[in-house]
């Protein structure tokens, strides 16, 4: 069976985050993600979308974050692409869960996404832009 990805194109503006949250939960529901897990799924994807807007697109609303998702029998795969080519380890080069960095007001998004989702991986698109892959297993 061929699985065709569905693509969302979002301007890099925080006003789209709430609609995105609702869309991701609807995607999860259609893939039969357990009701109790829908908000964790949406938090994980929204966190990664925010990072793409901020680090990849510098919050320029003209720049697009593309989220494509494919629903396979045993998982949903999300690909989150931005227009930058930032290196996560440099941009997110601290762990806000440690020492005095615990009191920083930002930088927890990837930590949260990685803990809520089973697999979050940073890489590059064939064009050399930053791509995050999030896999959400289905029961």
């Amino acid at each position, binding site marked *: 069976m061929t699985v065709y990805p569905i693509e969302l194109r979002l301007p890099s503006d*925080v*006003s789209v*985050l*709430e609609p995105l*949250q609702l869309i991701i939960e609807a995607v999860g529901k259609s893939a039969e993600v357990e009701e109790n897990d829908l*908000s*964790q799924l*949406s*938090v994980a994807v*929204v*966190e990664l979308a*925010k990072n793409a807007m901020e680090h990849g697109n510098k919050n320029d609303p003209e720049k697009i974050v593309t989220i494509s998702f494919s629903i396979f029998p045993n998982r949903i795969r999300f690909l989150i692409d931005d227009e930058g080519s930032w290196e996560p380890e440099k941009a997110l080069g601290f762990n*806000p*869960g*440690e020492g005095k960095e*615990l*009191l*920083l*007001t*930002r*930088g*927890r*998004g990837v*930590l*949260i996404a990685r*803990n*809520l989702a089973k697999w979050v991986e940073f890489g590059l698109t064939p064009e050399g832009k930053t791509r995050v892959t999030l896999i959400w297993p289905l029961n």
Partner: protein
Amino acid sequence: MHIKQEMKGDVLVVALSGKVIGGPELMEVKEVFQKAVDQDKNKVLLNLGKVSWMDSSGLGVIVSGHTTLSRAGGALRILNATKKIHELFIITKLITIFETFTDEKEALDSFGE
């Protein structure tokens, strides 16, 4: 997101409800903490019981409030964090710096200790 404020003794109880998601609304929460300090209301209990969804932006504002109030000699404590929000506090280790309560009276009394 809605914000409700109420004084209970010398503690300002701030109740958030709805979705706490990144955006200008979060600045309002930050301003609540700053105004509390400006008005010498340095003890704040943040009720998250009716928050349906929150991400790292919400946590960032809560940390900012903690810093603002602590510097002024006060404290920010958490009431009724839902299971999912509590999980975010654990993931980010913020659970190690915030006192959390499920009983309002106990939370209010804790400021007097």
